[in-house]
């Protein structure tokens, strides 16, 4: 098998790889034919994923969520700067920071737990507004990366979902209630922030579903 075909084989899921390469060997395929077959399979498998609704919702969530979180990160940076100048309220900034962490974490978790196999597409959809914002950002008193504060907790949430780590019902519910309470305390219960009830709700739904006995799910 050519080095290119070996690289293409890595893109195939481990459970399929043995069977597919064995079938190609048995059919006597070699060189470019193997590479073409493997790439064709990868392409078809990716296209097959997009026949479901989950990748579309995950992609939309990644795009819209990152747009909103860019604003939240910027707001937090501005408020933190004011706090350092003794102009802001300490409690309000802490609330804002905690909310940003929770929103970003739950959004990252939702995107990957909804459609883990298309996370590369969700990453691209998240990166587009981020890059565009960083390039256009002009504020001498703040570094450009201040708008990307949300990325660390978002990636942490995504990694948690990749590892298929379960959240207990109680943890999910506590997090969702805490987010709502923080929004009420901070005064952030306005239009755009309602969007973040979606990942919070998903968190509770996901915990509920993954904690249900297996037979009950299949029924």
């Amino acid at each position, binding site marked *: 098998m050519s080095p290119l075909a070996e690289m293409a084989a890595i893109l195939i899921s481990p*459970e*399929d790889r*043995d*069977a*597919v*390469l*064995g*079938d*190609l*060997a*048995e*059919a006597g395929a070699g060189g470019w034919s193997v590479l073409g*077959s*493997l790439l*064709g*399979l*990868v*392409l*078809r*498998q990716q296209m*097959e994923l997009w026949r479901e609704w989950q990748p579309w919702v995950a992609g939309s969530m990644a795009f819209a969520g990152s747009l909103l979180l860019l604003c939240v990160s910027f707001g937090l940076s501005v408020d933190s700067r004011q706090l350092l100048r003794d102009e802001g309220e300490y409690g309000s900034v802490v609330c804002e920071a905690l909310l940003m962490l929770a929103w970003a974490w739950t959004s990252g978790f939702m995107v990957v737990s909804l459609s883990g196999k298309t996370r590369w597409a969700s990453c691209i959809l998240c990166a587009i507004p981020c890059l565009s914002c960083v390039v256009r950002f002009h504020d001498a008193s703040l570094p450009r990366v201040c708008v990307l504060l949300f990325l660390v907790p978002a990636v942490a949430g995504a990694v948690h979902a990749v590892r298929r780590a379960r959240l207990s019902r109680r943890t999910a519910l506590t997090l969702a209630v805490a987010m709502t309470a923080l929004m009420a305390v901070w005064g952030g219960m306005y239009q755009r922030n309602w969007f973040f009830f979606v990942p919070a709700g998903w968190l509770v739904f996901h915990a509920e579903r993954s904690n249900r006995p297996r037979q009950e799910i299949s029924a």
Partner: protein
Amino acid sequence: MLGEFEYMLITVAAGLGENAYGAAIREEFDKGAGRKCSIGALYTTIERLERKGMLRTWMGEATAQRGGRAKRMVRVTPKGMHAAKEFYEAMMRVSRNASWAAGKPERAS
């Protein structure tokens, strides 16, 4: 209802019985349908039919001919057989008046 390719795959797998796996299905498909079946089309359709509960697959033995790699064995489930039978009967019903099915001389419509 099944798609044409799904029906053909189930039919070929059912015909192969205990020996149904990727390479054998492709070979049978080429012989029977007279057209090539790509690895991509085969495996994505197997996965889709397995999700629908019409096929069951498991990893089988490895042979030297396959470079020591295991086969993915395929078996048609009763649900798959039922769906294929329904497809076959529907095709027979809609074809009954067609010239090529009824043995009538061909006529342009």
